[in-house]
């Protein structure tokens, strides 16, 4: 049970005992079962946040001061200067490891600073010797040298910086027509850390933060690490990826409360809905499939297409396997979002076999409408305003997009917009009233 739920329970208990619904013994047993609530320590959190912010600012400042380019200094002096910030940051990290191993603020701050100073040091050498950028190589060297900092200091900020580094590296490599699938093993190097943190507490702040960052990073990387020899592969890949995220979130992180505490679920759901919206247009379905195989124009060795095959099949299959498990658990939302990859594969097959686009787009028109209605209705039922509004938003987006496709006159379009606006307002007002009524009753 999450901390908020226990807090609510403890808040309710005295009243329940007073009303005679619970015996004092049951009250004591419940308190013993759930244990004391750790008091939130806002002061400590502030210290951590400001520690990290301070380290990042100082690090960025040092990098800018170095970037000023002190050409009046001789080369040996500049060589020494390039090491100075790095050595100081290493000293600080060592001091933290052995004198303040318990302090999260010190660990995060020192880790962030050290990570940045590795980049600063390499940059300054590059500047001194007029090394023009092989940017991907610089990013990769920096990230790999920084990775051990993550583990030695057990800190999340260097982990986020590392993730940024390898994502940026993959993007630049892709931009230069390079082979970026190395991103996946590099990202996997963070998994032991994530596993450790998840075991220590699945709903803590640091693994949650890392999961949010991983969602973003993996979404970017899925696009840049495939060679796109099979046109339209992204349709199935992304549908599978977002569904997989949602299902994992739904499966193993069900007890978390609030939007930010459930990165996989919410990122995945948003991904599926946005993707489904894109799929209601005809352009994603044009010129896809084996008939448009890119192999002939592909001037790289064939093995570079292996990640396409692996990612394009593994991710949707994993999502579908999880969907099968969801069916047994009977979670309707899991079923709804988990269907996306199956529909994507179906749409893909339809479009590539028949070379017509309308059926596939129509399939997702239907899907988005059903998903929107489902979210709307179930949101109202279980009093979740956010869910209700997401449903309304999905329906609105669909209607607006279709009405702009068609040649209806302005009067009709105007009336539609007014109707949608009223629906939004009424639904929200009703929901707020109902919540208010519930509060008064309680």
């Amino acid at each position, binding site marked *: 049970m999450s901390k908020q739920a226990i807090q609510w329970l403890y808040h309710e208990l005295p009243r329940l005992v007073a009303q005679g619904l619970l015996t004092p013994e049951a009250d004591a047993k419940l308190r013993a079962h759930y244990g004391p609530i750790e008091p939130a320590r806002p002061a400590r959190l502030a210290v951590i946040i400001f520690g990290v912010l301070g380290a990042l600012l100082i690090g960025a400042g040092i990098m800018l001061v170095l970037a*000023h380019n002190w*050409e009046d200094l001789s080369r040996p002096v500049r060589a020494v200067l390039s090491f100075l910030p790095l050595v100081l940051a290493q000293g600080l990290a060592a001091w933290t490891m052995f004198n303040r191993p318990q302090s999260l603020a010190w660990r995060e701050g020192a880790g962030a600073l050290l990570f940045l100073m*590795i980049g600063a040091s390499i940059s300054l050498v590059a500047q001194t010797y*007029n090394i*023009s950028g092989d940017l991907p190589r610089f990013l990769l060297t920096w990230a790999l040298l920084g990775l051990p900092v993550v583990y*030695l200091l057990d800190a999340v900020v260097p982990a986020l910086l590392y993730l940024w580094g390898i994502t940026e590296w993959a993007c630049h490599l892709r931009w230069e027509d390079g082979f970026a699938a190395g991103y996946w093993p590099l990202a996997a190097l963070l998994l032991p850390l994530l596993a450790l943190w998840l075991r220590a507490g699945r709903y803590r702040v640091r693994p949650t933060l890392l999961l949010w960052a991983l969602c973003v990073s993996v979404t970017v990387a899925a696009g840049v690490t495939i060679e796109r020899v099979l046109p339209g592969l992204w349709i199935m890949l992304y549908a599978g990826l977002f569904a997989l995220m949602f299902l994992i979130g739904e499966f193993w992180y069900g007890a978390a409360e609030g939007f930010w505490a459930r990165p996989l679920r919410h990122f995945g759901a948003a991904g599926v809905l946005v993707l489904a919206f894109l799929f209601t247009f005809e352009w994603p379905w044009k010129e896809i499939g084996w008939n448009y195989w890119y192999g002939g124009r592909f001037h790289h060795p064939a093995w570079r297409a292996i990640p396409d095959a692996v990612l394009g099949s593994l991710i949707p299959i994993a999502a579908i396997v999880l969907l099968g498990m969801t069916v047994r658990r009977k979670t309707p939302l899991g079923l709804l979002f988990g269907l996306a990859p199956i529909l994507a594969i179906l749409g893909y097959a339809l479009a590539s076999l028949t070379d017509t686009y309308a059926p596939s787009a129509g399939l997702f028109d239907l899907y988005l409408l059903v998903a929107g209605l489902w979210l709307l209705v179930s949101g109202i039922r279980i009093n979740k305003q956010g869910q209700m509004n997401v449903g309304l938003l999905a329906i609105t987006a669909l209607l607006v997009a279709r009405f702009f496709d068609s040649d209806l006159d302005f009067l009709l379009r105007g009336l539609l917009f007014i109707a949608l606006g009223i629906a939004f307002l009424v639904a929200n007002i009703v929901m707020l009233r109902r919540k208010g009524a519930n509060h008064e009753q309680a």
Partner: protein
Amino acid sequence: MNKRNLILLGFALVVAAQLAVPAWMIMEREWTLRDGQVFKFRTRPIDPADAFRGRYVWLGLEPGVVKTRDVNAWHYDQKAFAVLGTDTNEFATVERLEHKAPAGQAAVPVHVGWTDTKKGEVHINWTGLDRFYMTEQKAPAAEIAYREHNRRTNQTCHVTVRVRGTHAVIEDLFMDGRPIHAWLKAHPGDK
């Protein structure tokens, strides 16, 4: 070995690796600057639109085109080794392009731009040698001067590059035969 010593050892290794990378970068270049053969490159006018300038001068080394018989063996963005020679004025020339680093000859890694099959020419980019870093105040002045000189008086600019095997390091940028820093001091108003 107890846990603390293990962590200490790990930390020491990490620290060593973090220091080794910049140290190696410095050493490699110092060797080249000390032992490398000097080549003087003419420079060509540069494209004035680039968002990142200001902190360095963008260099366009010459020659930018290499005559070759096997034009079709090259494609866009391919890595190549430009085997260097010198002309009668002691400026660098490219004798030929190679796919692999030739042994015992000064050759600089370049990237193939576009190829002209009719003329038998391969356009090359000196990707590793296109920046000369300066302070943020001086770089724009130097760049304007550099551009003016390349245009007006036609090639009174050159850079010296030290080459050791396939490793090349820019030594200095010259304007009217004088190093850029000295030249800027002598022409404070000429910006």
